[in-house]
């Protein structure tokens, strides 16, 4: 009796905790509300199975507790029952998998009009690069990275000239503008994760990974590195600020392009040479 009651209480406690505890996800701020829907669906299907199995178990423990005069039933198999349970489970699993795969397909199919943005991760911080007016990100190479060329941009690639370099942990995005983030790491694994956008993907040195989303709510969101990247992992934070059109263009106007950066570097160099000469 005692044992069954405790098991039932644990199940009831779990249900209460699920529905009434204050710990729940942050409101979604991107187009990936579908992911939340899939999670909710999973909760109902699997939750029902969990509650049913555990309550059945608790019932058996109570109803068939040891009595000296009781004799257990002898029933090695029940093909019909096993067959039904198998198919019922398969059906439940399919009901979870099918919508999940549909959303996944959406997740990996980047729309044509998505703006490409490069996110650069290093131990331990974030930088960004926007494609500029031509909408194309210029080529980069690890070998070219230097103090003067922090992104390792290939200056012989005409697309690189107007690329906008955001050497700051804050990234601004325009609301409702689909974005494809191209993820690039200089050193070890990182992961560009904004909980409110629901999306994440690892960043690896050597290859460019990506995902896409539409920021749909104005606001100030924290970027967390979600792939362990060494001692400073927990402190690797940045911010995404989703602006309306006006704020976004104001911010954009203040950023410098690769061309300007080279010019500025050269100017500084010349000044330095001039100073030395004097």
């Amino acid at each position, binding site marked *: 009796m005692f044992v069954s009651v*405790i*098991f039932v209480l644990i199940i009831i406690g779990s249900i209460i*905790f699920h529905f009434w505890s204050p*710990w*729940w*996800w*942050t409101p979604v701020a991107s187009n*990936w509300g*579908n*992911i939340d829907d*899939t*999670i909710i669906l*999973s909760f109902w299907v699997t939750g029902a*199975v*969990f509650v049913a199995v555990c309550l059945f*178990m608790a019932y058996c*423990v109570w109803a068939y*507790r*040891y009595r000296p005069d009781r004799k*257990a*039933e*002898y*029933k*090695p*198999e*029940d*093909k019909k029952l*096993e067959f039904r349970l198998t198919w019922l*489970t398969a059906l439940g*699993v399919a009901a*979870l998998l099918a919508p*999940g*795969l549909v959303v*996944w*397909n959406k*997740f*990996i199919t980047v729309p044509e009009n998505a703006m490409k943005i490069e996110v650069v991760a290093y131990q*331990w911080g974030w930088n960004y690069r926007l494609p500029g007016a031509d909408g194309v990100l210029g080529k980069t190479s690890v*070998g070219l990275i230097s103090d003067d060329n922090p992104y390792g941009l290939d200056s012989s690639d005409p697309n690189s000239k107007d690329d906008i370099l955001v050497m700051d942990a804050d990234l601004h995005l325009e609301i409702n503008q689909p974005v494809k983030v191209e993820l690039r790491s200089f*050193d*070890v*694994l990182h*992961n560009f*994760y904004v909980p409110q956008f*629901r999306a*994440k993907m*690892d*960043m*690896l*040195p*050597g290859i460019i990974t990506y995902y896409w989303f539409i920021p749909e709510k104005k606001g100030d969101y*924290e970027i*967390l590195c979600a792939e*362990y*990247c*060494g*001692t*400073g*992992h*927990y402190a690797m934070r940045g911010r995404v600020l989703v602006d309306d059109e006006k704020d976004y263009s104001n911010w954009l106007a203040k950023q410098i392009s690769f061309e300007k950066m080279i010019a500025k570097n050269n100017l500084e160099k010349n000044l330095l040479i001039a100073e030395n000469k004097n």
Partner: protein
Amino acid sequence: MSEKYTDNKIETKAADTSSGSYAPPVEKIPAKESPEQELYHAKSFWTKWVFSQDAKVIGVQYALTATAIGMIGLVLSWGMRLQLGFPETFSFLGPATYYQSVTMHGMIMVIYLLTALFLGGFGNYLIPLMVGARDMVFPYVNMVSYWMFLIAVLVLIASFFVPGGPTGAGWTLYPPQAILPGTPGSEMGIVLMLISLSLFVIGFTMGGLNYVITVLQSRTRGMTLMRMPLTIWGIFTATVLALLAFPALFVACIMMTLDNLLGTSFFMPEIFSMGEKLEYGGGSPILFQHLFWFFGHPEVYIVALPAFGIVSDLISVHARKNIFGYRMMVWAIVIIGALSFIVWAHHMYVSGMNPWFGFFFATTTLIIAVPTAIKVYNWVLTLWRGNIHLTIPMLFSLGFIVTFVNGGITGLFLGNVIVDVPLSDTYFVVAHFHMVMGIAPLMVVFGAIYHWYPLITGRHLNQTLGKIHFWITFVGAYAIYFPMHYLGFIGVPRRYFEMYDSPYMTSGVGLNQFITVAALIVGFTQILFLYNLFTSWYKGEKSERNPWKANSLEWHTPEYPPVHGNFGKELPVVYRWPYDFSVPGSDKEYIPQDVPQSQVPTAKAEKT
């Protein structure tokens, strides 16, 4: 398709009617196929108890060593929990030490505790006894296997004392960071970890070959495969998985050691780190992840399958009822084992591998849920209309069902590729795998220890301490890991040393404190269990022979507890499956496997 289906149905019916009638007594005793095994008879204390070739002693050695290193893993978790729950009060862990604790805790618990305990511990002790063999087929290799394991453990411990400390690369040891200076222990710690793992694999292979060959070749007469207890099926299949999966870990370890020491670039692409370009180039970090998880996912089942098997036997014996759907249970174990080799990349949905893999691996992963669910149904259906003794092994088995179902269903979240995107690398994952491959198998380990302790020592563990141990461990562990899933929903990433300045993370502070307190209570309760384990060895209540009235062979040795050679002059002959409880037609409540039909002529004989 439909034709086949009807065919099956007819067959099913035919089988049903045949088992419904009383079959004539089956008394066929197959002839001996192999000569009697010659055993090494130890004479001195050293060869009997230290460099022992007796699988039972080796099993206990494995179990004690695994428990000892497991206690270190447990203590490491306390440091982590204090940091996460009360970062201001307990500031003795810096980020580097924290990450080292995380890494060592994970590696110790998964490999050196659970794998060694289930296969090395229970495998060694139970396989020869339960299949009716005198010992493992290669006792000497079996002994070496244990000593290799011990050396692996010692190398692991040594890494705590080298300059730079043990590796803090996370238990997954992902390169490039595992061998680059931004990670703690990237000097000697990682090298010793890789060496220790390689030694473990070598040692395990020696033991593993023994377990597999013993099960295949050394079963006593009449012990057909379909008469083996599910414990043996679980351990056997898990060992096969391990023999196929561990080589992937082994090569990954060797390759990373080469990358680290000789400057090869298996896993190292062009890297610009801390202001300079490194010498590496051309390797792939994802390759390591594939190798690691090709081992790592079967590893989950290497731990889970023995637990599945053992818990089936515990439930059956203590509910005095045959395990429901034995054949289905065996096939489920085998199918799960086979499928476990084609699901590994579900750990890598957001690793940056080709996203199209997501479709394949999500499908295979969710298919595994079907045989797993069948096993769960069969456990609870075994309780149905049983005569349930609420002994401590039974309590732990019930605790296993709850924690396993809970951890299993969250697996359906993470296996479904799109749901994994927001949840991966958060506390949802941490909660999921602790519940499903930490707590659930540990419930079985504890249940199994309370169940077989009398067989090993001839004495019972203290029942009161046992009940306290069960309730605190089960309820406490559930209280730790069930709410932890919700931290993951908030978006709290795993492997964060601290995070309280984040705006919405602060809501998790109270929850983290609660979890820490619960973890400490559960942790300290294990000391109570160890106390019980040691004092009962000489003070415990003496156990009568076969105290649980089980049918399997290990309880029916001529001497109790069993001695070297296990069985007397003659090996037992097996006439039935191990689940003949409450058989209709018989006045006996249980019929051991070595009882011929002629002794219980009226009992209904199950076709096995």
